[in-house]
């Protein structure tokens, strides 16, 4: 057994039997993927809300997205990153990173703003703290640098909320854990994830070599499930694009639902609600028939 069993025999009711402590202590089934879920969101459907945290999320259309000059990107391989982390650790000790969870609303569902680099790397906006810098000031500086037009500003317009998660890197490899294993003496990096509250409207100025994506929570949760949906994604993207629908974010709703009737309704609502063009009835019927043929 890998954990302590608390059991009592029939004759010694107050006796506690403890097993041995697990050797090594490294977690089993380790994977490199970090899962994130916004677990403290308020939903109007919940009936009993004594201790729920209310968090205002504004529609995606309230925000303006522009671009600015590209960042000097540090194109590091894994080995280079490990070497750089080792040298920085030798010089400055433990490395502390802060990352921001920024939420917007689209189709009455929370969406998470992610920065995409080189088509395959998704990151939360944030970065490394300077020595002696506080978490809040460092996160404001990083958000101003990456998402604001004034790079040298102090980021005073950002409102940093509570800390959602803390991750630890026990070694210089890529694995991070939400709790320190007991056999780790000196951790190498600490990553803190904060909730950032947005005002009703805001301008986001993104560097040209990055893309800012609004990913729904249902896509962020259990991301490995999307691999089965990738087969159909190009077809649906092409269909929806022909109607002028922005497919970057709404495509995920279709793949995540198991109820096909609801799926068709969602598709129709997405087309009607999102399309800037006037969708003719004939085209709509064709699109729905095509989707039905793909799915059923």
């Amino acid at each position, binding site marked *: 057994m890998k954990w*302590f069993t608390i059991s009592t025999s029939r004759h010694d009711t107050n006796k506690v039997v403890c097993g041995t402590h697990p050797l090594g202590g490294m*977690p089993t*089934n380790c994977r490199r993927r970090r899962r994130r*879920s916004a677990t403290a969101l308020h939903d109007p*459907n919940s009936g009993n809300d004594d201790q729920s945290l209310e968090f205002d999320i504004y529609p995606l259309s309230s925000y303006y997205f522009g671009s600015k000059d590209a960042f000097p990107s540090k194109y590091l391989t894994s080995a280079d990153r490990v070497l750089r982390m080792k040298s920085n650790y030798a010089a400055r000790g433990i490395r502390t990173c802060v990352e921001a969870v920024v939420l917007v609303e689209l189709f009455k569902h929370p969406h998470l703003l992610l920065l995409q680099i080189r088509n395959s790397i998704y990151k939360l906006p944030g970065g490394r703290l300077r020595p002696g810098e506080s978490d809040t000031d460092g996160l404001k500086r990083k958000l101003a640098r990456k998402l604001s037009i004034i790079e040298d500003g102090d980021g005073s317009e950002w409102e940093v909320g509570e800390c959602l998660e803390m991750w630890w890197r026990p070694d210089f490899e890529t694995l991070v854990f939400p*709790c320190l294993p*007991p056999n780790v003496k000196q951790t190498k990096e600490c990553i803190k994830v904060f909730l950032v509250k947005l005002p009703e409207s805001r301008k986001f100025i993104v560097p040209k070599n990055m893309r800012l994506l609004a990913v729904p929570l*249902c896509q962020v949760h259990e991301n490995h499930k999307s691999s089965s949906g990738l087969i159909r994604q190009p077809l649906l993207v092409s269909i929806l694009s022909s109607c002028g629908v922005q497919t970057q974010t709404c495509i995920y709703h279709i793949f995540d639902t198991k109820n096909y009737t*609801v799926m068709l309704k969602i598709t129709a609502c997405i087309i009607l609600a999102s399309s800037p063009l006037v969708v003719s009835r004939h085209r709509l019927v064709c699109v729905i028939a095509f989707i039905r043929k793909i799915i059923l």
Partner: protein
Amino acid sequence: MVSSQVVNTYPLSSYTFGTKEPKMEKDTSVADRLARMKVNYMKEGMRTSVEGILLVQEHNHPHILLLQIGNTFCKLPGGRLKPGENENEGLKRKLTSKLGANSPALVPDWQIGECVAIWWRPNFETIMYPYCPPHITKPKECKKLFLVHLSEREYFAVPKNLKLLAVPLFELYDNVQRYGPVISTIPQQLSRFQFKMITN
């Protein structure tokens, strides 16, 4: 300066464990449980469940108290709220029902902390999500996980047909196959707290 919250964790040896009469499950299979959930949904609407996360420490690492049914199924202490019941009072009632002694003097004074996770059940199935899916207008269940702050010394009475396990956080992390998606993500949800390991 945003500061993390400090949670006091006491050694496992500070607590005393006894037994009491068995507490049988209301359903014998998953299908029966989902059918009963459907019947209750028709009568009372959306079901609200509360579960408590009780933390102890051993070898300077936090452990979570789990109730084990049979040989494989682990669950957190807690249960369903009555219609109109307050969350804190309901969780206290459920914790007393699961882990409290029969004598009122020995029942712990439960200190309910903050809500660390909210899970939603979109249909009458076993799958749950940490968000309400956008196409679901009437979720069937809302499950809330609360942190329970234990005092230094407590007495827990465990029903005879259940086993109380103290599972370390590194065992739960990414172990969906054994503990399910709700319990295996507790280490991530608790990572924002600082655990103060108090030794005797």
